[in-house]
């Protein structure tokens, strides 16, 4: 398979997954606003931008962390390459270059998603109802896309590059959703472990679609268990560890290798990071500090991304 084609399929999936997760980020705030009794604490929109790592660009374009600015920046801003609109447009451009490789149904879904949000961008308003529907559509559109891909695309090299891209992106975004808690301020330190604190945690869980699955596994809401669930769970499809297992399996299918051994830099770095998660417990995480741990993980995952690019996409050797 051409490197460019593999890369396009990979990024097409990453962009769709990214758009979905940006919708999830914003939902955290919506969930919080609805769960908290009015007047408990001021709405906080700054954590959303800090989480995405695009704070500098935001400051340059908008300045103040108001609700309108933050939503506009994350959802509709053309000059933000990671906004939902930019992601869908990039996903479509990637899909266009591989139309002869992917199934026509996949192309149709991406094209329809892209076309359907354009009128919404024009008539955008910040009414809660409009936005909730918009973010639900984005999430559903993304789910539909991955469903269509799984139902219509042969499990060939192309599919595995797409699947690997999707799960690497998801691992990064679940990590960031969890990291939002670091930026959410409590009125003071005495609030740690109080219902307000737990409400913030459960808003994160809901945004990761993990609320019910968490309940089935652990029952009561406890910080350590929420962290354990979203990072270390093997089976929950948005948990970081699950994502890494999936991504590594696709990588092995591409190279013909096996987990536990490596021939390429991509396999080495991916395998290392996945096994690190296999042999980590929640105590280790809190020893390093949750925010520090999440931050380090993002850096390591980025490195895996570079290794994959170097191994398959850029100058391949004879």
């Amino acid at each position, binding site marked *: 398979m*051409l490197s460019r084609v593999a890369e396009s399929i990979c990024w097409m999936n990453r962009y769709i997954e990214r758009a979905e997760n940006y919708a999830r980020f914003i939902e955290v705030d919506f969930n919080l606003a609805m769960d908290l009794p009015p007047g408990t604490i001021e709405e906080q929109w700054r954590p959303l931008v800090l989480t995405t790592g695009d704070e500098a660009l935001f400051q340059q374009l908008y300045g103040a962390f108001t609700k309108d600015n933050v939503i506009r920046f994350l959802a509709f801003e053309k000059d933000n390459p990671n906004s939902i609109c930019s992601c869908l447009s990039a996903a479509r451009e990637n899909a*266009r*270059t591989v139309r002869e490789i992917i199934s*026509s149904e996949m192309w149709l879904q991406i094209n329809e998603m892209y076309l359907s949000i354009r009128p919404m961008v024009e008539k955008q308003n910040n009414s809660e109802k409009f936005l909730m529907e918009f973010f639900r559509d984005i999430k559903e559109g993304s789910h539909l896309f991955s469903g269509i891909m799984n139902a219509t695309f042969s499990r060939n090299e192309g599919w595995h590059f797409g699947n690997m891209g999707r799960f690497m992106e998801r691992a990064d975004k679940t990590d960031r959703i969890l990291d939002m808690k670091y930026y959410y301020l409590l009125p003071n330190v005495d609030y740690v472990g109080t219902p307000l604190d737990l409400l913030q945690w459960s808003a994160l869980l809901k945004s990761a679609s993990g609320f019910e699955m968490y309940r089935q596994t652990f029952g009561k809401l406890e910080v350590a268990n929420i962290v354990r669930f979203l990072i270390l769970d093997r089976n929950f499809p948005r948990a970081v560890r699950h994502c890494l297992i999936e991504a590594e399996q696709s990588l092995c299918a591409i190279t013909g290798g096996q987990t536990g051994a490596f021939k390429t830099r991509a396999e080495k770095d991916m395998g290392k990071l996945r096994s690190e998660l296999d042999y980590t417990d929640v105590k280790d995480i809190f020893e390093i500090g949750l925010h520090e741990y999440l931050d380090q993980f993002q850096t390591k995952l980025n490195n895996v991304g570079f290794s994959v690019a170097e191994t*398959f996409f850029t*100058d*391949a050797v*004879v």
Partner: protein
Amino acid sequence: MKANMTLPAAWNVLDKYSMDDFYDEMIEPNGQIRPCYEHLTNRMSGLGFQEVVGRQHAADRAFISMGITFNVYRDGEGLEKIFPFDIIPRIIPVQEWEQIERGLKQRITALNLFLQDIYGPQKILKDGVIPSEIIFSSSGYLKQCEGLMPAHHIWAHISGIDLIKHSDGINYVLEDNLRVPSGVSYVLGNREIMKRTFPEIFERMDVRPVTDYPLRLLEMLEHLSTREKPTVVVLTPGIYNSAYFEHSFLAQQMGVELVEGRDLIVQDGFVYMRTTQGLKRVDVIYRRVDDTYLDPHHFNPASVLGVPGIFDVYRRGNVALANAPGTGVADDKVIYAFVPKMIKYYLDEDPILPNVPTYLCWDSKDREYVLENIGKMVVKAANQSGGYGMLIGTQATKKEKAAFKAKIRKFPREYIAQPTMALSRVPTIIDNHIKGRHVDLRPYVLYGKDIYVMPGGLTRVALRQGSLVVNSSQGGGSKDTWVLR
């Protein structure tokens, strides 16, 4: 339409059909349906006009869902548009087709001998048949190709020769398109849709198939390499090219990779493509990128569409390019005027398909004639295609004519002029009525082990009333073309 004609009863939609003294492909001057159309019109009248119109709408929808599109760029935003399609086919009777086919083979043979000669001994110039200055002033002439001999001595592997039929009923060659002619994907798409639209008609009529074109194209391309199982690719400028759909379609139909310039790399005297498993050698490139964009080292240094160093590999014979770089000189519209002389010179034959009479503004006598008669003529830029850089004297304003006159005086080598030809017409469904619309024909010719002419080709139709311009960029559509056995 005259009163004495006999038409099938239900086909009374033709009652008000007016032929306006043009050659009509379906109806004879006396109002009779031509024999090659008899079966079709009988069938269509059996279906009833409402049903026919309904099937037209169904065909339009099928094009959209199949994604057979071309790109138009406006305001920096790309739009994918459907090439309008009309379901009444253009039918060519077998005797007429056989003559066209012989004529095209003759023409391509001569053009190819010309290319061999012009980049080799240049005998035709030394013998004074074509003035040297015309060749060396052509932007399509590439000095870098002098002394080169492509595999099997073939230069123009794929060509699309535009034909028109004048009111005298004779097919004339309007243009030779030897530089990556496009449109063949529409021929295949049109046929696919027509089979769905009129299955009952197709079953009963002996229409020569076109669907084997991608296979023949692949065979021709593989023939250009000496390796046992050569790797063939299609090179596209990318998704922003107006013919991107066709590039992707042909690659898919041939089962080969569709590559962009950045997918290819030159190393140790060979061309490779970057794959996820490392570099893979490429032997034959069907390139849909213009000559001057192919290699920034040798041609346009600003090109990002090409592959640095690829021309050196080509020169060493380590990769084949179709069509060969330098071929464009032969579809310069000034050089086109000399093709009948080439046929005589190289083959000692008379041309089977005549040229449209052509005035070369480069020649002072011709130029004076063109400037005086510009209102009656079609003026074309020698090196542009797609209906761009063109003036139709009969429809131009005073200002436009004056502007063209000035350009002709300033750059006489760059312009030619032809009398306005009365393109033949085919009945066409326009707003639920049948109206006569002008057509041309672009048959595709492959030159490999032997010369293959695709039976039929692309019939383009000018959908605007009275319009003679059939290009898709100028409001043209297309029809399926049937060659009957």
